[in-house]
C-alpha cells in the first residue's frame, strides 16, 4: 500500500491531489495547522475512499527546523513514506509586503525556507532506504521576479534552486524530487484575485497534472502545461522589453 504524507494538506491543490490518491486507495497522512479544516479534508477523503487509512497530524510550527524534523520524524517513524507532498504556502498582497518588513520576512520564510527544510528532512529519511518521492509545490512566480509578486516569487525561486540542487545530488539514487510549478489556480489562496476577474486554472486539473508528474518522477512540471511555454518566453524576454510590460 502506497503511503503519502502531505504538508499543508488544506491547501487547494494539495487537497485535490489527495482526492486523486484516495481514489487509488492509497493511505494518506494530512499535516496542517488548523484542526477543524484538516478534519474536514480528512472526512471528505474517507467518504471518497473507505479503504484508505486517512490520518491527520496537527502541527503549529512549520518554520522552526527542530519542529520540522520532529514532524517528518513522526511521519516516517512507523513505516516509510512513499510520497511526500510539500504544499503549504501563503500569498499576501505584494504592496503590503513592500510596506511591512515583518510580513515580507514571514512570506519568504513560509513559502521558501520552510518547504526547503521539509524537503531536506524527508530526504534524510528517504536516502538511507533509497526510495521515495519528494514533491514540492513551487510556482511560475519563481521563474522571474516581477513587480506584481516578487516577495512571494523570491521565496518560490528559493524552492526552485533548492529542488534543483537536491535533484543533482540524488540523481544516482532512487529518491526522486519533483518540482511542480502551477500557474494561477482557483483556490482559497487566490480568492481575492478571482473576484477581480483574473482567469484561473481549476485545482482539479492542476492536481491531475502534478500527480501524473509524480508518477513519472518528472523533475519539473508546469500546470497547466501552457505555462511552460509562457514562462519560457517570460524568462527569455530582454530586460528593456520586460520592463515595459505591466505583468
Amino acid at each position, binding site marked *: 500500500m502506497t503511503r503519502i504524507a502531505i504538508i499543508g494538506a488544506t491547501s487547494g491543490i494539495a487537497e485535490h491531489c489527495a482526492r486523486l490518491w484516495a481514489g487509488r486507495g492509497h493511505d494518506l497522512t494530512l499535516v496542517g495547522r488548523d484542526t477543524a*479544516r484538516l478534519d*474536514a*479534508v480528512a*472526512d*471528505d477523503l474517507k467518504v471518497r475512499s473507505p479503504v484508505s487509512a486517512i490520518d491527520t497530524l496537527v502541527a503549529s510550527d512549520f518554520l522552526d527546523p527542530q519542529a520540522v524534523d520532529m514532524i517528518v520524524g513522526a511521519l516516517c517513524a512507523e513505516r516509510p513514506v512513499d510520497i511526500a507532498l510539500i504544499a503549504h504556502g501563503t500569498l499576501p498582497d505584494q504592496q503590503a509586503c513592500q510596506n511591512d518588513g515583518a510580513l515580507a520576512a514571514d512570506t519568504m520564510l513560509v513559502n521558501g525556507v520552510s518547504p526547503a527544510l521539509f524537503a531536506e528532512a524527508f530526504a534524510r529519511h528517504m536516502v538511507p532506504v533509497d526510495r521515495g518521492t519528494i514533491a514540492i509545490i513551487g510556482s511560475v512566480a519563481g521563474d522571474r521576479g516581477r513587480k506584481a509578486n516578487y516577495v512571494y516569487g523570491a521565496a518560490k525561486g528559493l524552492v526552485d534552486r533548492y529542488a534543483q540542487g537536491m535533484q543533482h545530488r540524488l540523481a544516482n539514487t532512487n529518491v526522486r524530487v519533483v518540482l511542480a510549478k502551477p500557474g494561477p489556480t*482557483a483556490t*482559497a489562496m487566490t*480568492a481575492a484575485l478571482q*473576484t477581480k476577474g483574473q482567469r484561473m486554472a481549476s485545482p482539479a486539473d492542476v492536481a491531475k497534472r502534478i500527480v501524473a508528474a509524480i508518477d513519472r518522477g518528472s523533475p519539473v512540471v508546469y500546470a497547466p502545461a501552457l505555462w511552460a511555454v509562457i514562462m519560457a518566453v517570460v524568462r527569455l524576454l530582454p530586460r528593456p522589453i520586460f520592463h515595459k510590460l505591466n505583468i
Partner: protein
Amino acid sequence: MELSGWGRYPRVDAQVAFPTDATACARAVTASQTIARGLGRAYGDSALADDVVAMCGLDRFHAFDTETGLLSCDAGVSLDEILTLLVPRGWFLPVTPGTRFVTVGGAIASDVHGKNHHVDGTFGDHVVAIDLLLGNGEVVRIGPDAQPDLFHATCGGMGLTGMILSATIRMRKIRSSLIRETTVKARDLDAILAAFETHGSATYSAAWIDCLARGKSLGRSLLMLGEHADEGPLAPRTKPPRAVPFDMPSGLLNRATGKAFNALFYARGPSTVRTRTIPYEPHFHPLDGLAEWNRLYGRQGFVQYQFVLPSAEGLRRILETIAMSGQGAFLAVLKKFGRANRNLLSFPTEGYTLALDFKAAPAVFALLDLLDRAVLDLGGRIYLAKDARMSEAMFKASYPNWQAFQEVRARHHAIGRFASHQSKRLGLS
C-alpha cells in the same frame, strides 16, 4: 465579471466571491446583499445579482452511511460527483433532474424534480437536514422536524432564506447502474395522456413531445419509461461529454431544421413499444452528453418556458398556440406530476408540466406573455429555476404562498441580505 444563467439571457456584470469554507461564506454574507450560485444551471436570473457567492469551492463530502444511505456533503458538491462516487457502491440519487451538473445546494433551492416525481416527489422530499447560514451570520441546522417553517421555505426558496452550506440526503439503493427503458409511441395528445395513465406506476416517466406537429398529429410524443435494472454492472460514468465548440449562428435552429429533426426523431422511435437496457446517463441526462449545448442557440441566448397545469384541459390550447406561433421551440418535455409538497415556493403541483426552449427575441417575449395569461387562467404556474422574464403580478397570483414565504424570511433575518435579480423582479424584496 460577466455572468448569466444557462440560457445565457440575461447577461449581467457581477462581483463574485469564491469562498471555500463556511467562515468565508459568513464573511461574504455579512459584507453585502448576495445570492448563492452553484453550477449556473438555472436558466434565467435566479442566481444573478450585483454580488454573487460562487459555492463550487465548498465541495467536500462529510459522511456516508452505508447502512442507511444517508449522505452528508457541502452545498457545492455536484450531483455528478455524487453519482460518480456512489453508483459503483450501489447507491443512486433519490431524485435527479435532467442534468447531473447541478449542485446539492442548487437542487434544494430549486426543489428540483425528476422523472419519478409522480411516485417519489421532489429532491427536497429526500433531504433530512440542511445547515443554513442566516443573514445575521448564524448557522442553523434545519430539517422536516427542526424549524420546519424555515425548512419548507428553504426547499424551493431559491436561496432567498439563507445560504445553504451543507445538507444530508437519503440515497436510494440500486442493484445495477443500468436502466430498463421502455419507449411508447403516442400519435397524438389523447394517446400520450392515456399512456401516462396506463403507465402511472412506472418509477420514471417523461415524454418528448413534438411541438411543431399540428392538426391530427398535435401532441405526438415518445413516452420514455424507466426502471432500475435488477441485474448488471454497477458502472461509473465513463464517456466524457463532447462540447459545442463555439456559439452557433442563431438561425441554425429554425422551423425547417426543427421539422426535419422532429420527423426523424419520431420516425426513429419504435413502431409502438420498445424495451431496452441502457446505462443510466442517456436515460436521465441525455443532454449532458453534449457539453455547453446552450451555445446551440447562439450568442443572444434562449429562455426555457416550463409551466404546470392542474388538468390536461388547457394543454391542447397552449400547444396549439405554440404550434401556430412558429416560434423557436420544436421539441419539449411533457411529464405528469404527482401531488405538491409543503414547500412554500416549490414548483410541482399535481397535473401536467411542459418544458420548452425559445430563442431570446422580442417576438418570443410577446408570445410568452400571452402564454402566461393562459397558464394563469388555467390555474397553473411557471418554474422559477427556468424563469427570466415573468412579471411580479403573474408570480404573486400563481404562487399564493409568497406572503407566507416573506414572513418566514422576515423572521429569520433574510430580508435585505439575500436577493437575486429574479427576486427583485418578482417583488420578493
